[in-house]
């Protein structure tokens, strides 16, 4: 089950990376988001999975696809591949991989966490999330609300025709 969802996620992401057609790339992205939602379910977190579907595939991807259709710019990306950027990204990924593997192998705490996690069968509930959010992280919650308001006003102001 884990392998299935991981494959859906990675193939969707790779499809988005390699696909020239923007609409198809957007649909690949939806597949990747669904895969991540499945991984959230496997991590005993149905709350995050539901939010992932609602926020990412329900709101963000619909917005992106709407803009793709509205701009009608499905043209192929012109010119040859960007060799410098390609090598730069590969080098960056190699450095990150080296650091990540080294960190994971060196960390005793991580292995302890993995053992500890195996002993916790209970799933995350919405009640627990809400209690934590409003009791311990109220400031973050308020800041997120403020940022969303600013983003909403900014988006409306930016797309206004006679700015």
């Amino acid at each position, binding site marked *: 089950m884990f392998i299935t969802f991981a494959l859906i996620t990675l193939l969707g992401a790779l499809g*988005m990376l390699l696909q020239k057609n923007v609409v198809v790339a957007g649909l690949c992205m939806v597949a990747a988001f669904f895969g991540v939602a499945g991984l*959230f379910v496997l*991590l005993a977190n149905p709350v995050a999975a539901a939010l992932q579907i609602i*926020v*990412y595939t329900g709101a963000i991807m619909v917005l992106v696809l709407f803009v793709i259709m509205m701009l009608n710019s499905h043209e192929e990306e012109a010119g040859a591949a960007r060799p410098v950027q*390609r090598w730069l990204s590969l080098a960056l*990924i190699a450095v990150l991989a080296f650091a990540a593997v080294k960190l994971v192998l060196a960390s005793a705490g991580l292995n302890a966490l993995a053992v500890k996690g195996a002993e916790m069968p209970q799933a995350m509930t919405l009640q627990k999330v809400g209690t934590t959010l409003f009791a311990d992280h109220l400031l973050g919650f308020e800041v997120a609300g403020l940022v*969303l308001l600013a983003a909403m006003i900014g*988006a409306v102001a*930016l797309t206004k025709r006679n700015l």
Partner: protein
Amino acid sequence: MVSLNAVLLISFLLFSIGIAGVLIRRNALIILMCVELMLNAANLNFIAFARHNGSVAGQAFALLVMGFAAAEVAVGLALVVALYRRRDTVQVDDINLLKG
């Protein structure tokens, strides 16, 4: 039970694909989607650690990250639409007015 290291590996691969997309692709919309992918990878890590650590804080932060991702994509798409109106393109290579 999903092992923590496997989830971390998946999340790392997602983040790598996001980085490669941001650097390689030229379409501003695809670049925005790749940034979303990287945020998603971070969310996956938050959820995995919340699960294995038994704390709810990771889940709360993942929720906040989702909110910020929504705000980011709204402003980003508004910029792309404004750019398309003015320059009639969404290819970042064509937008080089500030290039030295």
